Structures are given as structure tokens and as C-alpha cells.
């Protein structure tokens, strides 16, 4: 008799009865996790990946109906009362949530919260000993000066630091299983890399098995041993990470892998869009839930849902054509062929005149204190002297972590008012010199597409009113507006019969198309794209990216493309500017910057991006940055990156002195420009 696996989930189903019908969130999934194993569960939003792990923890709301069984070392967890489960939670199973701010109690110090978990499960532990252990735990997860920070409150920590605290709490009682639910989704890439490192360390220290739930294939590729792909409440493919990534069988997995922009291949090939949207989990039709989106569906797919079939070597997939795909009769590129690029004739050739030119732009916000008598106590240097240039038909990718000043920059461009210092020139006109009427007509030339397509569309207006809104400003007649809206909807790949509907009837990807149609209504020259795909599910992103690429070519548009996802920028941009604390630290032609980054920050940023390819992930050298982005209120002398710079630590004192005292400016190095004194000393390995 072999020992039972650490966690065994048997035919687990979760459903929520609701007014509109029963929502079957999880529909019979089975998996096991062995001691010390790292399982990655991947799925899009609504695939049931979080609900299934909540069921394991017994944390589902009371109206959930759970069937099947969850066994921890052969003992059933379902049906136990909350008190028994509480004893297990924390001690045997620990959970790390996505949002560390709402997972920590704001009114207790983090030390208290760690100690609480310790003392709950170990009655013999005194308060003193618990506090000492809390400090130890904080040190383990890499919190600087833990003796001092143990007495800090959650709001005094940054997002990444809070997530470290969560990990500290999770490993406090030496659990056997850690469930991490999208632990890095809310964080920047460099912080994500740090947290994943800490998670691996925690796993090594405790010997616990880890179940990592994520939508990011790259994160799984670099960390997990096994992967489970979920779709519409079912497991559709599981197997060893290498197997699934190199030889995916289920068409959904194939599509997902081919639709993700990959830092290594991006920019050279078109992305493969995975059209359609996941089905509604109430009233699922019979047959394979992926059938409507599946390019190789046959008639048998509509009648019966395929079970998870065992292939070889623990690789399972739920597809009736799995045999054909596995044996190579159907190649992944036959399943999802790459779409053709826009025909040469349809392209608009643009004179390379300057569309947007930013020179020495500065935006400082005064930081004030006091309610009645306001006094200035500091300055937020959101944008601290940047130059950008976009020519006709060009895409400038502006990348950087949150808080680096990207958003302030685009707001300054869109406000079209005189900047504090520097100048903004749009299509040859300095915006500071515009009259009110000229500014209004200038607004036609610059439009914006926002990150969150739900928030960007007024829920109370129909699609026709939303897309036509920019035209109302410029006095277009109603009939002309209607004609133009139909034309725009066709252009972005939506049916123009949808014009009478409301935003909530559309999926995320469709909503983003509506947002793009609205931005195109006035035939602008420049589109400002503020993270246009980062709020979308991975399978949807490719379609939007391809649309943006096509529109650029068909209409001769220029884009100011703001993103934190480097792979996405690599895919679409012609030139790239990397921003750090209100400054541009490196800029240049996109191929050059990505192939040979010179600034240590750019290098770290690139190495932090997970690549959805397990082999590439393992062979990469990661350049981890220390700590978080400093606050833009800090007065930093010299190079503002020196506190986190991996290169700085390798330099001799004389060179370090230069970093501490002298502010580096952008200078041309080879084919790109970088703001670093010691590019010649750089021995860090990019990618």
C-alpha cells in the first residue's frame, strides 16, 4: 500500500444557485498534489481555478454547493465543520491571496498578525517567543530591517512587501501545502520576480507542496513542476510542464500558448488570436465547452463533452482528437495557423513627419500637509524632464513600472495645456500657444484608449452613442454619425448591428474594440494607448494586438503605447523608451534595445519578464532588483537608480562615487541611448 498523496481532489464540483440559473463554476475536477510538488493551475477569469482552491480550503460562501471529495493525506476535508478546518488551515494548508492589502488586517501590526497565526496553532508558544519568530520569518522572506518593520502596520508596506508578509504568515506554521491564488498579479514585473523567488525559497524551507493559481503561462513555465489547464470549470489538460509547453494536445492549450506574446519571439511573427469568449457557466450546452472557439472541432464535439484522456507519461488532455494531435497528424500550426499580415496595397504610407514631440517635460506635484493652513512639505517629481518623439506611422512604446510617471506623461499630452517646464508639440503646433477653439479641433487628432474597457465605457449609453460621442463635439449630423459608427464598428471587427446594445452585453475584448472604435471616430493622427491589453484575458489579448497592428498600417496611425508588459511592447512598437522615476533611462529602436539593453534597469526589467517556455526560463539568468520603486518624493542625489542598481554593487568605490553624486543624462551608446555612467563596466547578462 503506497502512501496517499498529500492532496487529492476527487471529482470536485462547485455550483452556485442563482436567480438566473445554477452557475456551475467547477464541474468535476480531479487532481493530486504530492509532497513537495509545485503545481501550476492556469486558466482565464471564470475558469473556476480560484473557486476550486477555495473549495479545498473550505472558504466558499455558504450558498455554494460542493460535491466530490477533497482528501488531505487520505482524510476527507469536505463536510468538516469550520472549527476543525480552522485547525488545518494555517497549520497544514496555507493560503496566499492576490490582494495583500485586503488580506492583512489594517489595524494590527504585521508582527501581531504573524504571531497570532503562530500562537493559534501552538498553544505552548509565549508572546515573546512568537514575536522573535515573527522577526525571523520576516527576515526569511526578505524584509529589510525586520526588527523594526515587525512593528509596522500593513499600510506602511508596499504591495510587494505586503505579499512577502503574507508569505511569512503562510509559512509560519510550516504547512505542508501552500495555495497561492494569483499572488503576483497585482504587482510589477520586477517585484513579481522577487516574490516568485521568495515563494520558491519558502517552498524549499518548509518542504511544502505549492499550488500556484495564475493566468500567466510565463509564471508557471518558470516555477511549476506540473501544470493543470482549466477551462469552463473543467481540467482540460494536465502534465509535466515541459510536456505541456512543448507538446500541448488540447486545442485550448495550443491556442493559449500561441496567443501569448513572448519576449523571445515577439515582433517577428504575428500573434495567433484565440477568437470568441469562454462560455457562460450557467446553462452550458452539451458537448465540449471549447467547441465554439475550436478551429478543429468536428460534429462529435457538439454532442458529448470529452473526458480527460490519459496520454503517455502522466500527460492528460480532454479532446476527442487528442490522438491525432499527439501523434503529429495535426500539427499545432494547423490547429491555430498564424493570420496573414495586412496586404501591402492596403497600407498607408506616411511621411515621417513629427506627430508628437515632447521636450524637457516636467510635472511636479506639490505635496501639502495641514487641513486649514496648507504648507508644502515636499514635491512629487512625477515627470522629471523627459524627451519623446513620435513620427507619422510610428509606435513608441513607453514602459516602466507603476509609479514611474507613464500615466502623468500621457495625461499631460492629453490635457493639451502649457506644461510646467518644457514643451509639447503635436503635429507641429506647440500646445501652449493654442487658442480654445484650436485646442478643441486639435483634440480630433489625439485620442486615447484606456486600460479597463469596462470603466472606459459609460454603462448607461448604447454602443452607438459611445462610439459617436467624439463626433458630437465637432458638430457632426445624426445621420452622418450613424453612418460613421457603422463604418467604425466594421473596422474594428464588430457587427454594426450591435450598435444598439449596451457595454455590459459585450465581452472584455469586444469592449476594448468599442473603445478603439471610439478613439478612431474623429480620424486621429495619434492614438494614446494606455495599457490597452493588460486588463484582458490572455486569449483575448492577441486579437486586440493584431487589430492595433492592422489599424496602424491601414490608417497610417501613430501610437503612444504605454505598457508594463515588455513582450507586448516588443510585439508592436518601433521605438521604445524605458521610464524610471520620472526619467527616461533608455530609449532607442525596439529591436536594438531588446537585443542589447545597456541600462541595468532595462536589463533587470527584461530578465524579470517570465517567458512561457520552461526551457528558456530555466536557462535564463535573472537580475533581481532590491527593494521597491522609491517614492518619487524622495530626494535622491546622483543617479536615482543607484539604490536598487545591480551594477552599482559591482563597481569600485571611485565609480560608485560618481553614481552617488552625478546625475546621468541620456547619451548615445551604440545604437540606443542610455542614462548610465558605467555602461562600459556592465557585465550583467540580459535575457
Amino acid at each position, binding site marked *: 500500500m503506497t502512501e496517499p498523496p498529500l492532496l487529492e481532489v476527487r471529482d470536485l464540483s462547485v455550483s*452556485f444557485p*442563482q*436567480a*438566473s*440559473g445554477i*452557475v456551475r*463554476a467547477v464541474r468535476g475536477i480531479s487532481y493530486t498534489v504530492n509532497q513537495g510538488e509545485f503545481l501550476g493551475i492556469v486558466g482565464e*477569469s*471564470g475558469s*473556476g481555478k*480560484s*473557486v476550486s482552491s*477555495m473549495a479545498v480550503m473550505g472558504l*466558499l*460562501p455558504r450558498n*455554494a454547493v460542493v460535491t466530490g471529495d477533497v482528501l488531505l493525506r487520505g482524510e476527507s476535508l469536505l463536510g468538516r465543520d469550520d472549527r476543525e478546518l480552522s485547525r488545518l488551515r494555517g497549520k497544514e494548508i496555507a493560503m496566499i491571496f492576490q490582494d495583500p492589502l485586503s488580506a492583512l488586517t489594517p489595524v494590527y501590526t504585521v508582527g501581531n498578525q504573524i504571531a497570532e497565526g503562530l500562537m493559534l496553532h501552538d498553544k505552548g508558544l509565549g508572546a515573546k517567543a512568537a514575536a522573535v519568530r515573527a522577526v525571523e520569518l520576516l527576515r526569511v522572506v526578505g524584509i529589510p530591517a525586520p526588527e523594526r518593520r515587525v512593528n509596522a502596520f500593513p499600510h506602511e508596506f508596499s504591495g510587494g512587501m505586503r505579499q512577502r508578509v503574507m508569505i511569512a504568515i503562510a509559512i509560519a506554521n510550516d504547512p505542508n501545502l501552500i495555495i497561492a491564488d494569483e499572488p503576483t498579479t497585482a504587482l510589477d514585473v520586477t517585484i513579481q520576480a522577487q516574490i516568485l523567488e521568495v515563494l520558491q525559497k519558502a517552498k524549499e524551507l518548509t518542504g511544502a507542496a505549492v499550488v500556484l493559481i495564475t493566468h500567466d503561462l510565463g509564471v508557471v513555465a518558470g516555477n511549476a513542476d506540473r501544470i493543470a489547464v482549466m477551462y469552463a470549470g473543467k481540467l482540460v489538460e494536465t502534465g509535466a510542464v515541459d510536456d505541456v509547453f512543448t507538446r500541448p494536445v488540447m486545442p485550448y492549450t495550443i491556442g493559449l500558448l500561441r496567443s501569448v506574446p513572448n519576449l523571445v519571439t515577439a515582433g517577428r511573427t504575428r500573434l495567433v488570436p484565440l477568437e470568441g*469568449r*469562454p*462560455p*457562460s*457557466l*450557467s446553462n452550458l450546452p452539451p458537448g465540449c465547452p471549447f467547441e465554439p472557439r475550436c478551429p478543429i472541432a468536428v460534429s462529435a464535439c457538439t454532442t458529448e463533452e470529452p473526458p480527460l484522456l490519459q496520454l503517455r507519461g502522466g500527460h492528460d488532455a480532454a479532446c476527442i482528437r487528442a490522438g491525432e494531435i499527439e501523434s503529429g497528424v495535426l500539427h499545432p500550426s494547423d490547429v491555430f495557423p498564424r493570420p496573414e499580415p495586412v496586404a501591402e496595397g492596403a497600407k498607408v504610407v506616411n511621411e515621417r513627419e513629427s506627430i508628437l514631440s515632447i521636450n524637457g517635460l516636467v510635472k511636479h506635484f506639490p505635496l501639502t500637509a495641514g487641513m486649514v493652513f496648507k504648507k508644502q512639505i515636499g514635491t512629487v517629481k512625477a515627470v522629471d524632464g523627459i524627451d519623446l518623439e513620435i513620427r507619422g506611422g510610428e509606435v513608441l512604446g513607453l514602459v516602466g513600472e507603476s509609479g514611474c510617471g507613464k500615466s502623468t506623461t500621457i495625461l499631460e499630452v*492629453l490635457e493639451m495645456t502649457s506644461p510646467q517646464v518644457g514643451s509639447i508639440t503635436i503635429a507641429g503646433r506647440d500646445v501652449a500657444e493654442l487658442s480654445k477653439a484650436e*485646442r*478643441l479641433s486639435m*483634440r480630433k487628432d*489625439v*485620442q*486615447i484608449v*484606456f*486600460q*479597463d474597457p469596462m*470603466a*472606459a*465605457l*459609460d*454603462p*448607461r*449609453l448604447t454602443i452607438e452613442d*459611445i462610439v459617436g*460621442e*467624439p463626433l*458630437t*463635439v*465637432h458638430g457632426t449630423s445624426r445621420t452622418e454619425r450613424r453612418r460613421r459608427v457603422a463604418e467604425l464598428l466594421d473596422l474594428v471587427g464588430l457587427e454594426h448591428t450591435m450598435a444598439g*446594445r*449596451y457595454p*455590459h*452585453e*459585450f*465581452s472584455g475584448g469586444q469592449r476594448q474594440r468599442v473603445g478603439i472604435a*471610439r478613439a478612431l471616430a*474623429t480620424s486621429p493622427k495619434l492614438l494614446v494607448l494606455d495599457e490597452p491589453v493588460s486588463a484582458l484575458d490572455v486569449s483575448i489579448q492577441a486579437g486586440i494586438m493584431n487589430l492595433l497592428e492592422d489599424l496602424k498600417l491601414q490608417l497610417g496611425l501613430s501610437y503612444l503605447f504605454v505598457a508594463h508588459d515588455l513582450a507586448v511592447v516588443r510585439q508592436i512598437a518601433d521605438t521604445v523608451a524605458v521610464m524610471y522615476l520620472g526619467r527616461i533611462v533608455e530609449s532607442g529602436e525596439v529591436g536594438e534595445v531588446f537585443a542589447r539593453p545597456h541600462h541595468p534597469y532595462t536589463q533587470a526589467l527584461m530578465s524579470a519578464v517570465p517567458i512561457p517556455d520552461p526551457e528558456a526560463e530555466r536557462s535564463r539568468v535573472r537580475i533581481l532588483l532590491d527593494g521597491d520603486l522609491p517614492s518619487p518624493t524622495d530626494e535622491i542625489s546622483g543617479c536615482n537608480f543607484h539604490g536598487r542598481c545591480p551594477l552599482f554593487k559591482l563597481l569600485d568605490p571611485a565609480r560608485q562615487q560618481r553614481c552617488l553624486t552625478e546625475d546621468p543624462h541620456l547619451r548615445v551608446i551604440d545604437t540606443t541611448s542610455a542614462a548610465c555612467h558605467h555602461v562600459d563596466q556592465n557585465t550583467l547578462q540580459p535575457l
Partner: protein
Amino acid sequence: MALLDPTTQGEVDLTAALVDPGKAPRNSSRARLIWLRLRSTPRFWVGAVIVVGMIVWAIAGLWIAKWSPLDQDLINSSTGPSTSHWFGTDDIGQDIYAETVSGLRKSLVIGLIAGPVGTLIAAFVGAFAGYLGGKADAVISWLINFLLVLPAFFILVLLSPVFKSLSFLVLTAFIAMFSWMIMAQVIRAQTKSLRDREFVKAARFMGVGTPTIIRRHILPNVASLLIIDATLGVVAAIDSETALSYFGFGIQRPQVSLGVLLADGTPSATTRPWMFLFPAIVLIVLLFAVSLVGDALRDAVDPTSGNTRD
């Protein structure tokens, strides 16, 4: 006010992400969803039926009456309910039924005007203050706070000599003028958060003017709040009117409102209870019914009480 916040999506709701927003509830708009939820609330139906019934009664009640409110049946003064005088008569022989219907009419008219007018003021003042921000916001906020600390009832009492001689509409206007401040603050806060929403920003960057943004984007997005407020505002306005009239500062004879009738009936409430009881019952039932409707509306709109999505 988070409970009433129409801009927040439902609280952490596991099922929300799973329900396909386009298909799951088959309805086409939020208004329909609210109506669906309202429809399944018994409270709403009880309240609505009573309110509609009372309005119909107020309009048609006098046609079936044998007496007009001004008639005096001196032979039957101070008598209890009978076949001739359904609710009895008062000391000077006036028919209580006729007076109650006519008082209800006045109270309803005042409530139905003052409540929504107050909401309208609140909507515009709040939305402009919240949207414009800066100096305009500071001035309007100061005004709101100033009006809030003024004892409204006392001022209405002081002003009563002015409107005693004028139409009851003046009284209605005064009641409306003192009932919008709190709602205006709520709308102002809502607008402030809406202003940072991307669809409002998008409109601004398109060059859409402020009044258009408020009309097209802000007010429709606080509409559910406004509807609740207008409904509950009716209750508040009738309350104010009744209280003022009761103390003799509101509606004056020969016009009657429920407050006037209550005041007249109070001295004889123990000896000839019909003079007090019937207007009182009508008032309580009316306020109760309107409150029920408002309450049901609030629950239907409240994003935390179920799986609403906006």
C-alpha cells in the same frame, strides 16, 4: 453611503466573475435588472398598491362623498361615523371624510412636488460641485454646510407669516429648499469618484463640455440614487408639512391638509376619537406605503444585496 454606491461593483463576489455578463441574466440593462428584482419584492407591491390606491382615492374620493369639505351639517355636528358621515363630523358639522380626502390631496401634492424638486436641486448642485471641484466646489460645499446647520423647522416657522398669505405652493417650495442638502453631498461624493472614471476622462479628452458631461455621463449614473431619494423625499416632505401645519405654521384654514386635521382633532382625541383617528390613520398608511416603495427600491438598487453588475 457605500451601500448606495452605484459605481462600485458588487463586493467580493465569487460568482460574479463566473457569470457571463452578457448572457447570464438575459435582461438588457440595469434598469431592467432593478425592475426584475423589484418585481419579486412583496414589500414593493404592498407599498405601490397602497400608494396608487391613495392617489386614486385622493382624486376620486370626493366624487362619491355626500358632502363637500366646506359643507356644514350643523344638526349632526360632533357625531361619530354613520351612514351619512362615514368618518363622522367635527364640532362645526364638517364631514371628516370629505376633509380627510381633501387634506390627503393637499399633503400628497405637496409631498409629490417637494420631494422630487429637492432631489432635482440636490442632483444639479451636487453634480456641479463634485465635477468642477476647486473653488466652485468649496463655495457650494460651504453653502450646503451652512444650510445644514440652519434649523430648517425654525426658519420655516419664522417665515410662516410670509407664506400664510400666499399659495401653498410657496410652502412647498420652502420645504423643497430645505431638504436637498444631504443628498447633494452624497451626489457630490459620487460625482467626485465618477469624475475619475475613464469614460468621463475620455469624454473630457474628446472635448465634451461640462454641462453635457454632467447630463450625459454623471446624472444617469447616479439615477438610481436619485430615484430612491425622490421617493423617500416624498415621505420627508409630507412629514415636514404635517408638522408645520400641526403647529399652525403651514396650511391655513379654509384649506386643509392632514396636519391641519390632526391639529384640529387633537383636543378631542380621547372624547371623540374619529376626528383625530381617521386623518392619523390615513397619514400613517400613506407614509408607510411610500417608505415601503422607497425601501424596496433601495434594496433593488443596492449592489451588495445580490449579484448586480453594472
